[in-house]
């Protein structure tokens, strides 16, 4: 790596170190790691930050994205783009004029409109090729916008670093006010219309003092799934009534889509029997892919086969102070502790199209094993090895087709289901086979 290529990384390290360290010193160190010791760029950057007493975690996590992949509601977006247009504008905020720059940015996958909220700090002009760090996206009227706020950083890149394709239009997301099913709701959607039954609702106060707000939170469901909602205005929602909510928006929490609606929203009431009973009925099975597409799910039912039981499954010990898993007699936080026994399973569920990690706590594990915790402890003592329980878990779960029910979150490791209920599949294989046969033979 030559000096020019190092420059943006030196700048990033300097920023993480609060610009307290001379850039030439950072450059020297980084150059040493990269060109003498030949470690990877990430390792080098982390090491340099550490050597100067900084926090390596503050380095951009490298949420490197391509324009075409951007969706609404993303944080810490890093994207290398060419500025296609940059238009200064003045808007009024709290009665005071405030400058703003808006326009279009593009990379080889497409173009996106952007807003630069702090043009006094960051200067952009048409034709610049830059790395935007810590940007965030919002969806407005079905269009995804890239925002450069007060945390954004712009680093100059060489002109040939980005080949801009401005022929591909801005990514569009759903949410044009058309009615949607609960299972289709995804993080970042705006202007959503949903018809669902209110399952529960609770009045809550959030925030303090002047910023305190009242919110009505609860659960809604239609025949495709359940979703948590937050109503930021009192629509006098009552359990069991069927409502059609328009102009709502969706925000994700760890990938789980949550429906939000405020004063602007319209809530219409439908007759209670206009929707089948979705409270007591079992949720309809959904595919992993389907949940993946929207980021997560509340109380979903997924059918698949356990293809791996991960380490740390079976009989474990937890720290009495923080409940963390105790490994080799020591808690990561509290050192040597006398842990208490617990059961859990971490397994991989695979449905042939996608996979997710299934996490099962003690009650679910006990039910699957057909054995309670005390019995497990007894057997482990007898064998003088806790691993025997893990073996039983493998034997009972591996290669078993199962129906798992629970909330599905999405984090850096991918989809994860917190299993609330696990049972053998209730698929009538013969009936399904007969149906499929009729369909298939109909083709011939």
């Amino acid at each position, binding site marked *: 790596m030559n000096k020019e290529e190092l420059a943006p990384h030196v700048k990033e390290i300097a920023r993480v170190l609060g610009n307290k360290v001379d850039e030439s010193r950072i450059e020297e160190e980084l150059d040493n790691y990269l060109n003498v010791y030949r470690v990877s760029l990430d390792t080098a950057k982390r090491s340099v930050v550490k050597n100067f007493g900084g926090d390596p975690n503050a380095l951009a996590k490298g949420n490197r994205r391509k324009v075409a992949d951007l969706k609404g509601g993303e944080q810490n977006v890093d994207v290398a783009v060419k500025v296609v247009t940059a238009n200064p504008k003045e808007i009024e905020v709290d009665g005071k004029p405030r400058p703003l720059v808006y326009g279009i940015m593009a990379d080889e996958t497409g173009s996106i409109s952007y807003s630069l909220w702090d043009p006094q700090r960051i200067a952009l002009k048409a034709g610049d090729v830059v790395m935007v760090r810590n940007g965030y996206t919002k969806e407005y009227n079905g269009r995804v916008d890239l925002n450069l706020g007060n945390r954004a950083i712009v680093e100059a890149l060489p002109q040939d670093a980005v080949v801009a394709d401005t022929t591909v239009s801005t990514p569009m997301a759903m949410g044009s006010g058309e009615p949607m099913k609960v299972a289709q709701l995804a993080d970042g959607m705006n202007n959503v219309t949903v018809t669902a039954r209110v399952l529960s609702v609770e009045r809550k106060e959030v925030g303090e003092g002047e910023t305190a707000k009242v919110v009505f939170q609860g659960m809604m469901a239609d025949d495709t799934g359940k979703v948590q909602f937050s109503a930021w205005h009192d629509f006098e929602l009552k359990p069991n009534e069927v409502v059609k909510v328009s102009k709502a928006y969706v925000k994700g929490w760890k990938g789980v889509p949550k429906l939000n609606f405020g004063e602007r929203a319209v809530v219409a009431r439908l007759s209670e029997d206009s929707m089948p009973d979705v409270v007591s009925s079992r949720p309809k099975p959904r595919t992993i892919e389907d949940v993946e597409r929207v980021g997560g799910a509340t109380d979903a039912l997924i059918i698949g*086969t356990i293809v791996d039981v991960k380490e740390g499954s079976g009989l474990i010990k937890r720290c009495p102070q923080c409940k963390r898993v105790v490994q080799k007699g020591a808690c990561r936080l509290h050192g040597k502790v006398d842990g208490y026994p617990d059961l859990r399973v971490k397994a991989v569920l695979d449905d042939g199209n996608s*996979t997710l990690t299934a996490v099962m706590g003690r009650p679910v594990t006990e039910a699957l094993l057909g054995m309670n915790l005390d019995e497990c402890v007894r057997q482990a003592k007898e064998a003088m090895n806790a691993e025997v329980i893990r073996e039983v878990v493998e*034997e009972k779960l591996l*290669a078993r087709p199962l129906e798992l029910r629970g909330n599905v979150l999405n984090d850096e490791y991918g989809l994860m289901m917190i299993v609330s209920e696990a049972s053998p599949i209730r698929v009538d294989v013969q009936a*399904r086979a007969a149906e*499929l*046969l009729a369909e298939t033979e109909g083709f011939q």
Partner: protein
Amino acid sequence: MIGRELAWRVFAAEFNSSRLEIKGEGEKAPSHLVTPLGAMINRVLLVGVLTDIDNIGTEEEPLWRARIQDPTGTFYLSSGQYQPEATAALAKMQPPKFVAVVGKCRTYSPEEGTMYVSIRPEKVQVVDIAARDFWVLETCQATMRRINAVEEALEMSPPSAEELVKLGYSLPLANGVVKALDHYGEVETQRYRHMVVDALKFLLPEMAGPEVPEHVSDIPEEIEDEEEGPSADKEQVVLGIVQRLDKTGKGAVWDDIVSEAGKAGIERDELDEITNSLLDKGLVYEPVLGKMKII
């Protein structure tokens, strides 16, 4: 995040017809075997009957070869010291057994143009018949999805992964189908459709050849027309014969079965029908030609 490679559901016939491997580029990048119907396989899940198992290595360094049969053909497994879990599990197994295997595909090309595929298991587990039947159903569904994707792609010029995704197919499948069509040319989907139909009939005993009465009938048994096909009773008789004659554990000799069945009043033609029905139901199999063994 690098996602876990999913476990594809493919029948042996489709798997073994694969002749295209796409090597991963760069360190640790996974390789994929592309089947004629566009499955992009790195990992598979299969459930079938373990029929043969041999240690062709030594006791200290075992190398197990195993065969697993599904309704369409045979999967070949090889498991050695680098698959400790699967190797230990296989060492304890006595065929025949219903087994589930999670494994990675391996290819061997002794010369240009030929390719042998096998599976290196990560996990091998004895399962029950319900798990096998569910796998067959799932694999029928997955195969039909691939057939449909290939047929849609054949209508496009040129086939496009993006268009397939728009039609609702998953990205790995869409990519696989485009690569498969590029390599295999026009795939005979009709042949695979027939394979799925046969596999579905395998799950439906009343469809597979002779009728087998499923539910208890009100009509006394004597009235039943014997000409209609082998009754469950006669199947039981033949099963009994096969079991009795299998003294070595390597199967009963066919000629002995014929003579014993004759003594029980079952003619040769009827015996053929009965054994075919038993084979279809997966209750017996042929370990070697001319022998029959109970599963």
